[in-house]
């Protein structure tokens, strides 16, 4: 340990922050003295797999990304359960809740996001939770052991995963969604209809086009009231209506923030010593909720921290996959289309399959896959590479297996 090394302090022991550190260690091992502060009392875990933790398909150990030993091996000082509460940018020092004060040469903010909590009457009742961390999952599991009825507000990715998980844990779950298209950020009406049927087949109660107006209960929540006046009994209410970048700390330290911490293409904030990655940032007006762009941010940010500052982050198309076992769903790019675009559509309702590719000229610009998402990654690649699909257009929607011979000259001649 050399006292002359510059110090990098990382705020947030989540996926974005730690991926940046991992990338950094690959590029410039030993360049920094690294200290990591995390609010949660665990090591670094894969937040995407929380829904599998909820269903019981994975255990806590299985979703851990980096073990405490890893931090030790890599000479990283890890402070769990001890969030940074203040940043003194002038003196380049941070203060933790437990009172640790540490100077930095570079600061990486990776505070992630907080679940949005609707400003509904009764939101503070016990039994009302978000779905964001291991403690939320534990809270939900606890409720599932004791109570019967649950309501999930929000039919987006997290809401559906939460509803499915609770249902798998034996609760009677009502999923409440504002529009009649589930996953309306990712699906069109056709695919959403199939999804709705599938969820109903799993025993979920769906309330679409339903606005929640209040929660009721004396101490613990007992149910929700919808705009049409109907009441839904619920001993557990999960709010999954989106996330907000967690910018409280950044803001209080005077960093320029809008919806998120504003960063440039190098993930640098308005303070040249401070970088930010992940769901807490805002890059060219865009905030983030999916993992793929975050990995890319980590790569770019690490290169700048490593002083190989040549990479640029460009926000790109994103793809989504729902992690509900038995539901295969994928969506990417411009899956709605419109004037100037063509559609390839495959419907097999009996097998529960719906696939749609949106083409612009001879390029794929969007994909919605339901029931058979095997080729999602391949389509995403075609979207990103803007490949000319003319020779395989007739087979494209049937997947890579059918297009391989046409694309691979060696195979075509064999």
């Amino acid at each position, binding site marked *: 340990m050399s006292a002359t090394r510059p110090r990098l302090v990382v705020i947030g022991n989540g996926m974005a922050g730690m991926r940046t550190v991992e990338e950094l260690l690959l590029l410039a091992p030993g360049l920094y003295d690294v200290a990591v502060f995390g609010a949660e009392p665990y090591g670094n875990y894969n937040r995407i*797999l929380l829904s599998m933790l909820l269903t019981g398909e*994975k255990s806590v150990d299985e979703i851990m990304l980096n073990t405490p030993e890893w931090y030790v091996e890599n000479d990283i000082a890890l402070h769990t359960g001890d969030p940074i509460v203040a940043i003194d940018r002038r003196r380049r020092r941070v203060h933790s809740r437990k009172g640790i004060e540490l100077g930095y040469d570079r600061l990486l903010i990776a505070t992630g996001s907080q679940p949005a909590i609707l400003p509904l009457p009764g939101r503070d009742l016990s039994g009302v939770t978000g779905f964001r961390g291991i403690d939320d999952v534990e809270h939900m599991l606890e409720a599932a052991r004791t109570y019967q009825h649950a309501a999930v507000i929000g039919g987006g990715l997290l809401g559906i995963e939460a509803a499915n998980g609770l249902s798998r844990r034996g609760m009677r779950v009502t999923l409440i969604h504002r529009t009649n298209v589930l996953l309306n950020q990712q699906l069109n009406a056709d695919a959403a209809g199939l999804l709705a049927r599938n969820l109903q087949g799993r025993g979920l109660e769906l309330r679409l086009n339903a606005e929640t107006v209040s929660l009721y209960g004396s101490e613990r929540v007992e149910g929700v009231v919808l705009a049409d006046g109907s009441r839904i009994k619920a001993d557990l209410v999960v709010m999954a209506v989106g996330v907000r970048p967690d910018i409280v700390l950044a803001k209080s330290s005077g960093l320029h923030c809008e919806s998120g911490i504003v960063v440039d293409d190098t993930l640098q904030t308005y303070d040249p010593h401070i970088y930010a990655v992940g769901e807490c940032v805002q890059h060219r007006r865009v905030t983030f909720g999916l993992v793929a762009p975050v*990995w890319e941010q980590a790569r770019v940010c690490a290169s700048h921290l490593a002083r190989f500052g040549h990479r640029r982050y460009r926000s790109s198309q994103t793809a989504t996959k729902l992690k509900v076992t038995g539901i295969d769903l994928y969506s990417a790019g411009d899956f709605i289309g419109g004037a100037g675009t063509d559609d390839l559509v495959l*419907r*097999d309702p009996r*097998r529960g399959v719906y696939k749609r590719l949106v083409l612009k000229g001879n390029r794929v610009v969007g994909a919605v896959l339901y029931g058979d998402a*095997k080729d999602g990654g391949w389509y995403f690649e075609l979207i990103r590479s803007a490949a000319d699909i003319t020779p395989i257009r007739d087979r494209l929607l049937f997947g890579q297996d*059918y297009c391989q011979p046409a694309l691979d000259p060696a195979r075509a001649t064999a």
Partner: protein
Amino acid sequence: MSTATTCPYCGVGCGVLARVDADGAVHVQGDPTHASNFGRLCVKGAALGETVDLQGRLLHPMLRGSDGRLQRVEWGDALDRVAREFRRIIDEHGPDAVAFYVSGQLLIEDYYVVNKLAKGYIGTANIDTNSRLCMSSAVAGHKRAFGEDVVPGCYEDLEQAELVVLVGSNTAWCHPIVFQRIAKTREAGAIKHVVVIDPRHTATCESADLHLPVKPGTDVWLFNGLLAFLFQHGAMDARFVDTHTEGFAKALAVAEAEAGDPAEVARICGLQMSDLLTFYRWFARCERTVSLFSQGVNQSSSGTDKVNSIINCHLLTGRIGKPGMGPFSITGQPNAMGGREVGGLATMLAAHMELDKPVHRDIVQSFWGSPCMAHRPGLKAVDLFDAIGEGRVKAVWIMATNPVVSMPDADCVKHALARCEWVVSSDIMTHTDTNAYAHALLPALGWGEKDGTVTNSERCISRQRAFLPAPGEARADWRVVCDVARRMGYAQGFQFSAPHEIFLEHARLTAFRNGDIEADGVPVARRMLNLDGLTHLNREAYDAMTPVRWPVLADGQGTTRLFSEGRYAHADGRARFVTVASRMPLHATDCEYPLVLNTGRVRDQWHTMTRTGKAPRLTGHTPEPFVDMHPHDALRCGVREGELARVCSRWGAMVARVTHGGGILAGNVFVPIHWNDQFASDARVGGVVNPVVDPISGEPEFKHTPVRVEPFPVRWYGFLLSRRALAPIGISYWTSIQGDRFRRYEIAHREQPAECGEWARRWLGVTDPEADWLEYEDRSTGVYRAAHLVDDRIESCLFLASRPHLPSRHWLSSLFMQDRLEDADRIALLVGEPADPEASTGHVVCSCFGVGRRTICDAIRSRDLDTPAKITAHLRAGGNCGSCVPELRQLIAEVRSQVEAS
């Protein structure tokens, strides 16, 4: 227990052993003892068992009511009505106001009674047969040369020849078993040369030593040239010509005058001089030469002259009536010759006797004891339908044939029947293009149900025997004719109770007053057709009758060859050289109709497909009607291979798919004869063919019609496979093809439906919104595909596209054999082909990036990857949510242990 019978297709007349299983399935095999085929069968014959089902069969009599709809009636009512209408029209307008149009598919016995009714009782010779369309030029040629309609040789001659000349015959496809006999002998080296004379390069040419692609219609030049060449090169048998022939000098003079110079002949016929001379030299050199000819010769406005130009060459060289030589007309139908024997042509009387000879008329009338006798030739097929159209013939009884499809200028035939007062059709199928115009439909027996005799191309009489029960109320044609005759008031003459009684009467008539010497002043006439040896058969002997070649004289032995003694049927016993002057087909091409249309059969279909159209194994070879043309002509006409074209003549038009078979000379097109309104939207080539006939035989010129080919523009192409037959109503182009457990429709349409899915569901009758319906659509390129499954079994599938590039039907067809579709097949269904297991990336491990197990294992092996991170670096697998990382580790361990182990 199998039944020995005879194949009902071409004129080869193969013996068939048929057996019916306990479950009713019919199995056939070649009869090893039959001298036509010695156990072999062609593909059509071998598939006979698939054609005898009752699908589409006419099973009870029907009469058209005043509302124009056919209604089922009792036999008694049907017979009464048919008899009454014929009686009424004869009484009002005379016997020549009625006519019979019969078929080479009838048995001798059926033919015999209908001929007897017409000529001896009604008193009209207005009975013609579809043999007019294929054989009548050969008949006329035989009569002119030999004095009687006689094929001198037999099939063995083909195996004993040194040179076999196939003229106007795609023998390989149209007479496959005879062709196999030729090909086998040629391979063994016994036949030295096979020459094919045909404007088309056909399958037959593949086994030939020389193909002469003559310009259509120039055969007489070719054979006149040959006659002159043979004379000039000393190949003449002067003793034979002097002793046994007449008319040589004049015939030779004309031949030498117009075709004495081979260079000129080669130019006119469009042949290479060297090829022409090769043929001439071979012919001059080979004593044992057989000239086998068929429709390419006969179906011409100079068909009879072509036949005689061939026979002339055999007379000049004396090559006739001896083993391994002779002119040989091969017939198209199983009983074309048998029909001629009983007089089933408007130009003959009966038993090879002539209408215009008083002695012959007297012989037949006194034998029949009939009230009257036709005394002048009746109307030949083309004239007959003209007369119907003009209202001169007011009643017609059509038996076992489909003139709306098979006649030239067939639209005219359609209009004629539409205005005919009384049309009766005896058929085995309910729906045919002709039956649509019938007022009475009489259900006939089909092959396997009917019982009687047929005569093949080599004069061999064989039994067709029943091995299936009569279906529904169907009856033998002879019985129906007898019943109608009696109801018309002819109490005598039609009291037959079984076919053998009719056959015996026919045999006795052939022998009756047949000879050279008058006895007791009763005039006689010598005929070569003499079945004296068969006149004493009782029922058992008839049933047990083995194939025999006529004449069958008193000793009961058949005759292998005729004219061996050099005695011909003309009164002076001499054969005739017929002076034949060449002439081109009547209608020449011009700038409006610049191409020559040729028509013919395809390998696996027969006539109008009523039977062969049922057998999946026959429909696969040529599923669709086509127009085969030279690529240069296609370019000039603006049509493309695989797309649709309209073929138009002055007489009509039809639509078919363009092919480049490679065998068509520029300036010519070929269209098959089989397709009709039951199998395609608009593919009756008969409607296009010119109604020109040979002036002597009356045989139409099917092989030469000036036409124009033009694009048939459509917006989309497609096909449908369906377990259920569907009505392709309102579709611009369709062809229906029977498959194994499904029907296939090739379709094309001028307009694309606005909503393909809705249109498809409506057409396929899938109204249930919960039906298992898969669909794929690429709207902007006009691609739509759908499949309907019921209980996981494929019910139908439909593929549409704006270009004729559609998936192969082959694999999709095979799915109809499965009672339950495998998941993999279901997924592949709308691709139209099975997933290539080699191309599969395997079970998905990384679902974020869709990376399969196989891809990952290959990468681990080939790039020696040892960490999940390295896999991610190469394949991106594991690089998103990371949930597959443990599986990646496991795969690394697996692959590496395999590598180490090996």
